[in-house]
């Protein structure tokens, strides 16, 4: 067993184990933490596949931004745990049967006979001065520049949509009223109170 294979099986084990822990954990915050672990394992496997830029992007964007957003929403909404898992047992056998059938079928289709090393040979590793980011950037800014622009517009639309959705209405927002501020009088804000000055103590 080569070192590549050992790394692959270690990362795959943690990927599968943390994904299983994620779907079966009763606490949503713990599920997010397990999902972070499985994203890290996925990023490790992507580095084995020499996709360094995407692996780092997965960690930065997904673990750094999206998962933190999930944690933020979970903590903000303060979900009642007891009501969420009411139908847990009812759908589990059906889900397991469907998943087992799909895995069996996929293993038959994707097994060593069709995609093994003797059919699709493993490519030679790139040299040490190979830059994954340069190769991706060359493609992204020439061939795929129009989809790249569209992706940027999509992100802008997503920002606008998210802000518009959660934006509160006029009445519940704290807002500045210029006319009230201008027309305010001194007697509205300042209240003069006469206080008896303390008498000097005789020495």
């Amino acid at each position: 067993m080569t070192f590549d294979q050992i790394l692959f099986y270690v990362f795959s084990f943690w990927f599968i184990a943390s994904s299983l822990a994620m779907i079966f954990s009763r606490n949503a915050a713990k599920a997010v933490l397990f999902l972070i672990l499985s994203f890290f394992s996925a990023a490790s496997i992507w580095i084995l596949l020499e996709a360094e830029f995407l692996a780092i992007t997965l960690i930065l964007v997904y673990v750094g931004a999206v998962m933190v957003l999930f944690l933020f929403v979970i903590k903000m909404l303060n979900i009642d745990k007891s009501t969420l898992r009411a139908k847990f047992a009812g759908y589990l056998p059906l889900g397991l049967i469907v998943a087992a059938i799909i895995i069996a079928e996929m293993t038959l289709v994707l097994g060593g006979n069709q995609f093994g090393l003797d059919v699709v040979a493993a490519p030679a590793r790139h040299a040490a001065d190979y830059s994954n980011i340069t190769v991706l950037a060359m493609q992204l800014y020439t061939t795929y520049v129009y989809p790249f622009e569209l992706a940027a517009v999509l992100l802008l639309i997503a920002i606008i949509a998210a802000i518009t959705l959660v934006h509160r209405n006029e009445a519940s927002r704290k807002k500045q009223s210029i006319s009230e501020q201008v027309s305010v009088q001194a007697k509205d804000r300042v209240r003069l109170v006469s206080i008896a000055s303390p008498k000097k103590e005789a020495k």
Partner: protein
Amino acid sequence: MVSLSDYLILSAIIFCIGLVGIFVNRTNIITLLMCVELILVAVNTNFIAFSHFLGNEAGQIFVFFILTVAAAEVAIGLAILTLLFRNKGSINVDVTNSLKG
């Protein structure tokens, strides 16, 4: 050496775990979103494995765009979730039956 079929079977297993997660966590919208993320990562692993073994960078470009779209989807999904919680007081799927579908 690790063969292409190993990577493909791994991502098939992860895909099915995400699918079971959707079956099991039917009442919790947040976990449903997380299972969709898991399925997307499995699909991305497929893309990257093919990109590596066939020597074509187009697969990695596709993963780049999938990550972009998934980030946008999560942002809007969580915004809808917040709105749902604000209006219904719960994020249980069972309360979202206003349309009587």
